[in-house]
């Protein structure tokens, strides 16, 4: 059973710029999700998106934050299942290849999977559309 989501994407931007976008609090807050985040090993981060919309929060710990690999755990509000998100950047001339891996997803046990799925199916869709509006 596939337990890891893997995404690869090449950005036509230098590696340091992409690294800043995924590791700096103000940039994460701008394109991804409102963040309390420091790219320091051991830092307990929190991602929150417009609470008044009923959006869920995500918390976790930074496991690795050396350029250009960023690893943190990913725990969705109201669940206790720890999954892991890894961002890896590879320099390709003037471009940057991102390899994103989200692993441990099948470890969601029954109850927390139910809680998570329920919060996601409603709240998360709102978060994404909010974020889209902001970026446009």
């Amino acid at each position, binding site marked *: *059973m*596939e337990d890891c*989501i893997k*995404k690869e*994407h090449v*950005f036509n*931007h230098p590696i340091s*710029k*992409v690294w800043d*976008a*995924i590791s700096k609090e103000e*940039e994460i807050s*701008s*394109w*991804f999700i409102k963040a309390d985040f420091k790219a320091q090993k051991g830092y307990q981060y929190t991602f929150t998106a417009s609470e008044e919309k009923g959006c869920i929060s995500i918390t976790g710990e930074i496991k690795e934050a050396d350029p250009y690999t960023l690893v943190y755990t990913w725990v969705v509000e109201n669940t206790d299942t720890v999954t892991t998100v890894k961002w890896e950047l590879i320099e390709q001339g003037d471009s940057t290849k*991102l390899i*994103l891996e*989200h692993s441990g*997803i*099948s*470890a*969601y*046990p*029954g*109850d927390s*999977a*139910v809680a998570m*799925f*329920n919060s*996601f199916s409603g709240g*998360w869709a709102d978060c*994404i559309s909010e*974020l*889209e509006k902001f*970026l446009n």
Partner: protein
Amino acid sequence: MSERTNRIFKAIADPTRREIFHALILASVALPITQIASNFEISRQGVTKHIKTLEEAGLVEIHTQGRERFCKANAEPLTQINHWLQFYAQFWDQSLVKLGKHLDKKA
């Protein structure tokens, strides 16, 4: 999410159950419980219990023939779990598009 999906998650959360299920998928025919149990180091009762949990999730079908009970794997319920994985796959796709736009704006 339905009670059924809940049972599927529960069934695949245990490594021994995943192994039993995997063995049945590879066999692709119905196997008697005694034969399945002989491949595992846990008791036959233990294996039977795991198979029961798999059956409750719809991942295994049991039918009795003579004195022996035969088990066959059914992978169909896993599509619900797949749905779950697809959700995240889509979430990351959308996030990467946003990251790309963010980088393009920030010349």
